[in-house]
């Protein structure tokens, strides 16, 4: 469905000059600052897969997504989405993708939600009969009925996000890009968003690319993740394999009598009772627990290693 080969994006900006006439100098200068945002990235995403595209801020995530959606043209390399080159065929590509930005709504601020959905329907040439069915389905899946007639500016963040998801899926695009769809949402709203993604993926074989900082989203939705940092792919594969391959050691956390907490790495193959015994011999233990490695600690470690 999505094929990316040796994708590279170099931002080349004319040097900016200060001062009142600086803008003019910027316009005519031949001196440029260059920054490689995406560096030789390749991956393929088959139809119906849900992939987490992860990386720290400034890693090149949104630059990649902008090239996948045709907003940006690549410096070099190949992007193909559903057999089309997005930037060359931006309009046609637009009809086959839905995009949700958690931070920015595409809804009309001063109008009731239903009007925004109607406008999106018109923009994507959804036939009237089809629109009614689609809207019904969205309302059922996302529980929009209670606030369809409320102006968007009066919606809670969770309601607004559900409205945005409906707007993005109204015209049944085969691909859905989600950029931090759960940012700022409460637990229940996050749950609703995740369930909707699972449902659309299952029912319509929709391919989903999810960028997020919330690893709980990733664990709940994706079986595969692509990790990038500084524009390069660090890891591409299953979550389970990632945790096994990169798993940091389990750790023994001991709370001592004098309110002190100490942690000990449990080396591979070491005996836990033996370690506890050793610690108990030297201290008075009030409580203890064993920390299993989770996705977050794994990813933290990978970033740490890539920086080194």
């Amino acid at each position, binding site marked *: 469905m999505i094929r990316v080969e040796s994708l590279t*994006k170099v*931002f*080349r*900006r004319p040097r900016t000059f200060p001062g009142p006439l600086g*803008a003019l100098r*910027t*316009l005519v200068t031949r001196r440029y600052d260059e920054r490689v945002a995406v560096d030789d990235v390749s991956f393929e995403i088959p139809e119906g897969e849900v992939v987490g595209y992860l990386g720290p801020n400034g890693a090149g995530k949104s*630059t990649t997504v*902008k090239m996948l*959606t*045709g*907003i*940006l*043209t690549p410096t070099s390399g190949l992007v193909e989405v559903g057999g089309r080159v997005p*930037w060359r065929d*931006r*309009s*046609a590509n*637009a*009809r086959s*993708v839905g*995009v949700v*930005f958690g931070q*920015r709504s*595409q809804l*009309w*601020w*001063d*109008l009731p939600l239903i*009007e925004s959905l109607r*406008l999106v329907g*018109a*923009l*994507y*040439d959804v036939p009237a009969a089809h629109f009614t069915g689609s809207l019904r389905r969205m309302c059922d899946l996302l529980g929009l009925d209670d606030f369809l007639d409320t*102006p968007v500016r009066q919606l809670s963040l969770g309601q607004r996000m559900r409205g945005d998801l409906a707007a993005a899926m109204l015209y049944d695009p085969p691909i859905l890009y989600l950029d931090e769809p759960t940012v700022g949402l409460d637990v229940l709203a996050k749950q609703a968003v995740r369930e909707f993604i699972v449902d659309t993926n299952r029912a319509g074989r929709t391919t989903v690319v999810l960028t997020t900082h919330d690893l709980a989203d990733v664990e709940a939705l994706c079986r595969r993740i692509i990790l990038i940092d500084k524009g390069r792919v660090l890891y591409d594969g299953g979550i389970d394999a990632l945790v096994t391959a990169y798993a940091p050691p389990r750790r023994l956390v001991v709370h001592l009598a004098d309110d002190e907490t100490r942690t000990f790495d449990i080396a591979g193959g070491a005996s836990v009772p033996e370690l506890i015994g050793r610690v108990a011999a030297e201290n008075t233990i009030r409580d203890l627990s064993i920390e299993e490695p989770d996705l977050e600690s794994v990813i933290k470690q990978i970033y740490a290693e890539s920086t080194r």
Partner: protein
Amino acid sequence: MAEIARALRLYWVLQRATMRGALQYRLNTVISVVTGAVYQGSGFAFVWVVMHTFPSMGGWSLREIAFLYGLRLTAHALCMLPLSSLIGLEWLVREGELDRVLLRPLNPLVQVMTKRMGMGQVGDLLTGVVLLIVAAPPWNLAMIGFCVPAVVGGALVEASFHLSLSSLSLRMLDTRALRGFLDDVFSKFGSYPMSVFGGVTQWVLTFVLPVAFVAYMPASVLLDKTGSLNVPALVAYGSPLLGVALFALAYRVWERQLRHYQSSGT
């Protein structure tokens, strides 16, 4: 062709939606319309007061200048009503709204145009049309046949400057102040018979910054005053065409800057 019809239909749908949104703030809407009308009206009030003492300005009577004023103002409103959203283009770029525009299957300019509803321009239009109707010489079919394309052509001349300078904000160049200044020059100098300025100023306002083409030349044709122009009468008759040519050029500048935006991601 079908694509253009679709774009026009969607423009209307989207612009109406934005207008519905703006109309929710009723007091603001009323004040904006009134301010627009007063702003343009005060410019004409100046002419009216001056001509109370001096009945002729550059060989034109008060009524003739009122017609010229109305013609320019109507053209201006016709330009700014659809393009007022460009005033906020810098903001759209900074907030990433332009990315959303590029994600939708409709001409980006059409989408940008519908982002805002210029209520002040409604006031401009009201003042302009009132002046045009009150001060017009007796109409005949030929005059109407020239007046309509003349207003559209004048609107396009202004629009082409507005559009091409606005598109530079896709390169993160803030041209708002410059656009404000040009708008000011078009409004102020475009509303007088060029014979008032004469000499170098008239030449500059004809051939460098084509302010004279917006309303002065078409008004000269409609008022049968082409004899005192600094160009052959034929040029005045053809003045609406300049707007079409300039706007085509401006649209290419816009498309170029949009491609630049897509490659640089500013």
